[in-house]
């Protein structure tokens, strides 16, 4: 025993969280400097999954890059497919048939639900409640069934094409989607009862890792993470593309329901509420979808005009921006993908200061990052 007043020398501990860790959602590595359980500094180290998609993009044609966008954010392949198609169409000025646009919106919103389900499920699993994860997976399987019918795959859909979609909707698809929506609607209150408002869960999330609106904008948070900070901004509404202007829906923002605006709980609740809005969008899109062709005339050897375009789409994880430079050949000259999760990791070091190790897990989960997108 040391004499009274003589402090024991203490030392900060350096812990490697990841790249192999159950709740870093992939191969994220966080270098933690901790003082006991309290995190002094958490520095994310990304790049373990780098596949040089941008370099690949310079070697393949515009149409060939479509399957690679599947691998960008594999939980929201449809959204990435569609973002790529929209970007190229904007570059080349292709008019897409309205039915195709509606189909894209339908599949994108279905995919948004399924992506948010995984976000919800894996987040609760990170928080120690494993059961909601299984429920989320169960719902997601039904969406996967729908997608399998429409495009033949359950994960990497590669369904959207430049100028439209690869195939028209199969028979009874819209009815089945409606059935799913009717089934899914009552599930959200159930999730809320089961876990969202659970005392322990709320305590784990409220007031943890607050991203103020100013910080959120300055650090480039987008999508649900930005809205969780109380910023009412949604590209589907503020910079409308496709047929979103014709559809009525609300933008969900964090309200500081159980704590401060912009805490983990707000980010979580925005996702839960967005699933409801997606259901709303889907119902409208199903009611409005016109008949017609699903593919515009696009030459087989597709050469867009020389130019540069930056297109961004509201994906489940935020804005996926595509900066595309065309030199008039069949291959993109330069292609930069602004991945929302990648940008989100930038704020990580700032807002995790002074949290506990268990909170790091909550922060990663609340940002709903996905590694293939971070590392591209």
């Amino acid at each position, binding site marked *: 025993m040391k004499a009274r007043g003589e402090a024991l020398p203490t030392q900060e501990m350096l812990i490697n969280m990841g790249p192999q860790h159950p709740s870093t959602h992939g191969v994220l590595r966080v270098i933690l400097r901790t003082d006991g359980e309290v995190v002094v500094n958490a520095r994310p180290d990304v790049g373990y999954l780098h596949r040089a998609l941008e370099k690949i993009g310079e070697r*393949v044609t515009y*149409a*060939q*890059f*479509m*399957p*690679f966008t*599947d691998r960008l954010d594999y939980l929201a392949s449809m959204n990435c497919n569609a973002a790529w198609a929209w970007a190229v169409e904007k570059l080349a000025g292709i008019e897409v048939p309205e039915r195709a646009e509606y189909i894209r919106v339908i599949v994108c919103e279905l995919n948004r639900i399924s992506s948010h389900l995984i976000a919800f499920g894996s987040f609760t699993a990170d928080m120690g409640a494993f*059961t909601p994860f299984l429920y989320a997976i*169960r719902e997601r*399987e039904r969406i996967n*069934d729908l997608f*399998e*019918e*429409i*495009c*033949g*795959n359950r994960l*990497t859909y*590669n369904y959207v094409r430049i100028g439209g979609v*690869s*195939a028209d909707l*199969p028979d009874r698809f819209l009815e089945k989607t409606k059935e799913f929506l009717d089934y899914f609607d009552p599930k959200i209150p*159930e999730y809320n*009862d*089961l*876990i969202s*408002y*659970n*005392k*322990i869960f709320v305590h784990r999330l409220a007031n943890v890792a607050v991203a103020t609106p100013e910080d959120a904008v300055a650090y480039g948070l987008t999508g649900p993470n930005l809205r969780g900070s109380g910023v009412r901004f949604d590209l589907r509404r503020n910079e409308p593309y496709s047929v979103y202007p014709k559809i009525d829906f609300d933008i969900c923002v964090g309200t500081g329901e159980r704590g401060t605006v912009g805490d983990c709980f707000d980010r979580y609740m925005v996702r839960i509420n967005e699933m409801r809005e997606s259901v709303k969008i889907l119902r409208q899109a199903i009611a409005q979808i016109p008949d017609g062709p699903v593919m515009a005339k696009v030459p087989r050897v597709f050469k867009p005009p020389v130019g540069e375009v930056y297109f961004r789409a509201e994906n489940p994880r935020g804005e996926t921006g595509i900066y595309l430079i065309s030199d008039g050949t069949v291959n993109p000259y330069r292609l930069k993908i602004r991945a929302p999760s990648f940008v989100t990791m930038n704020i990580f070091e700032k807002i995790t200061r002074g949290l506990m190790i268990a909170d790091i897990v909550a922060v990663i989960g609340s940002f709903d990052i996905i590694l293939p997108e971070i590392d591209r």
Partner: protein
Amino acid sequence: MGFKAYLYDIWEAVATTAKGMRITARYGVDPRETITLQYPEERWEPSERYRGFLHNDIKRCTSCTMCVRVCPVDCISLEAVRGADKKMVLASYDINIGRCMYCGLCVEVCPPKSLVHTGGYEMATVSRGELILHFVPEDAETVKGRVAKQVAEAAAKAEAEKAKAEAEKAKAEAEKPADAPQAPDPSPPPKPPGEEAAPFIQPAAPAFAAGNPETADAAGKKPAKEKEEEPAKAGDEGGEAKE
């Protein structure tokens, strides 16, 4: 924290926990909620558009290489040689399904629709080499050698016929020099070569020995074509059995 808040805290914890436990209990006791599919016994039916393993119907394949060019990951390799009939003959058509990402672009562009996705999704191998699907049952070199031989034969035959025709022409010219401009017939007298002899001479590849369609007339073409199909089918069956 006031005493009231303290008690409310406890109450909230108990109430929300009870709420959650009620839901899990309902799932726990309700057998209808079980959604597991007992995989090897119960099977899920892939949908019509399911993108499973690729299959190429080599009878219909025209060796146009569209699939090879469109494949983003270069998993299809195709070797074709120009046959005696000026059509492309597949020497080998391999798909490395270990590499394939099932994007379906190749199926979309295939002009004769010979390349299709099957519903197959089960495969396990112990070595990577087994992940390469061979659609042409024979060895590429064998096919190439055979075709080269046929081409040479056909060329020789054509040469012979040309020589013959020229000889005739020369003869005709010699006989009727005045008629010379009309004399050369673009298609010399059709003589379906080896129409009945070829299958016996070359049982391995009778189809291609059946003749040069350019030299064959319409009547001679038809039987030759029918002959073409039979052995091809046999070869295909052999391939399936191998799989």
